[in-house]
């Protein structure tokens, strides 16, 4: 009962705060990750909205007004959806942080469903750095850490600069030493 005497609003404000106060030693992702991520959504949204516009123009008849109305509403929809996606990706960016210390690699992610992964360094079997063509043009990369686990046999961290990812990979593998498997 004592818990209920708190103002529920205070609780809510606490609970729905998007980025928790991360410890100072945690690192954020590279800001270039946001535009790199948005490109994919942009392409998808353009295709979706164009398909919708075509459907609408077909329904209204392919005259000047019909096409204009379809294109206009398509542009509006694109703008609306894109700002939503942009906000979401920005929140994802803010919600993601990582740090490596002598014991483990820790990754925090998730906007609504938050998750904190602890990977002990002696459990890292090997690490990969992958970079797709899109990622390459934005200079970001994905670090993939492999463990012998079952549910988390691979843990990936998307949105590091390529140099940082490689640095991290070398650090995790070289200082890891022999794992005695």
């Amino acid at each position: 009962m004592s818990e209920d005497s708190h103002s529920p609003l205070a609780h809510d404000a606490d609970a729905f705060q998007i980025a928790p106060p991360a410890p100072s030693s945690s690192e954020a992702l590279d800001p270039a990750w946001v535009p790199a991520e948005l490109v994919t959504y942009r392409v998808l949204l353009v295709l979706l909205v164009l398909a919708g516009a075509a459907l609408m123009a077909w329904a209204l008849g392919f005259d000047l007004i019909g096409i204009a109305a379809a294109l206009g509403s398509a542009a509006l929809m694109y703008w609306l959806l894109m700002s939503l996606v942009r906000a979401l990706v920005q929140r994802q960016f803010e919600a993601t942080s990582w740090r490596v210390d002598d014991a483990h690699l820790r990754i925090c992610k998730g906007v609504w469903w938050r998750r904190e992964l602890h990977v002990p360094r002696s459990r890292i079997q090997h690490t990969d750095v992958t970079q797709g063509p899109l990622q390459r043009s934005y200079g970001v990369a994905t670090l993939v850490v492999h463990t012998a686990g079952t549910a988390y046999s691979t843990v990936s961290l998307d949105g590091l600069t390529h140099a940082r990812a490689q640095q991290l990979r070398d650090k995790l593998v070289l200082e890891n030493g022999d794992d005695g498997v």
Partner: protein
Amino acid sequence: MESEPEEVHRLHPLSLLFRVGSSARQLLLPAALVLFASGRLDNLYWVSAFVGVGVIHGVFHYLTYRYRFAGDELVVRGGVIFRFERHVPYARIQNIDLRQSVFHRLFRVADVRVETGSGAAAEARLQVLSLDAVDRMRERIFGERDAERSTPHEGHAAQNAGELGNTAPAHAHDAATPEHARPVASPAARSLLRLGPRELIAFGLLSQRGFVIVAAATGLALEFDLFNEQLLGLGKSLESSALDRGLGWALGVALVLGVLLAVRLLSVVWAFVNLHGFELVARGNDLQTSAGLLTRHTATIPRRRIQVVTVSAGLLQRWAGFVAVKVDTAGGSELEAQSSTRRWVAPLLRASQLPALLAELLPEFQAEALQWHDRHARAARRLFKRWVLLALFATAGSHAVFGTWGLLALPLVLVWGRVDAPVRARRAQWARGGGFFSVRHGVWGHRWRLVAEDKLQVVSVAASPFDRRWNMAGILTDTAGTTFSVQLGYLDADVARQLADALSRRASLSEFAW
């Protein structure tokens, strides 16, 4: 000569027969379908051509397949067109799995799978070897491996041996064990647990396995409209004969009792088929289980590769004072891991004998070292909210079916949930201590999971928006074991975070060895 490392072995000559047998069995159904569908006997040529290909393949497989024990690895070689050579270091071998159908047992051979921790398929499948060859292989592989690692817990384990053994005393083992289950002589084999017919009956009576079969039978009956024709007809004839309702009720009760009885009987039958002659044997650093009435299955579990130990007891088992113990090891295909007979080290064990068995499985484990902690104080309320949701859905459903009377479901489910939620919240606890992390929960049936902190791979803390409203979180620990993760929800978020950090730090201190 026998110590020469490069000695090359072949499969048992009967390999040919079993190889052809298994490929014929795979062909049998399609062949029968082809013959029936076409109704023409000349299709028989095609079928026999396929069988012929199978035979030729079997011959070549037998002729080319070789294995040898080189230094510290098992080398398997074979293939006709595409040759392969596989080196399996002894230190990586998790399990030597034996499968023996009735025919295998008749000829004293076994289908052998050598497994490492790689997950997917067995590293080497030797179909088939004579039992003597299997013994030599075991001796070789586990002997070399154990020589590398000392056995510090041998004395401790031996001291517990006498206390276990459900029915048969440990030394009766040599005389009573049939030939096919004979363990290797080299490190002294001690029988830890044996299930006789009485235990199998008890197991069947206490387990719910028959439900699966009854459910399948019911589904089949529904499929063929048996219920509509038989049961409804029966109901109508009762109605028309104007018998009183009492008889109808009696029939209903009899039907329910009959189903319950059938479930028990089928469970007993299941137990006899799958667990007949169940035996758990400790040999040096390994545990070995064998069971099965027709197809006998022998699995070796290296003690230090046990990832998670699960102790569970259903309501009936709990009342009767029994528990069941399963272990998860790394390696082996997921499909095989799902077959529960393989993971059982004790399908039925007196609760009083549990400490002795745990001492065998996890020699370092001390139950007293565990310090149990409760969940978040609001866990009961959150659990009750789930019941409220369930009650609303259930009431909507029952209202649609039963009309006004269906609304009764609302108070019934709510009262039930009000009773259940606090117990469920209180029963769920986590503990650390002595290098082990543990979680237990359950209202009716109880479940207790134990994992050595050295075996942890990844520790995860997850919080849903509902969790975060009350500053709660769930913890999940991942191991190399194939099925279970040790997890618990509704913890205090700060506690969960600290726990995850501590577990992960503890795991990072030790080198992981499969």
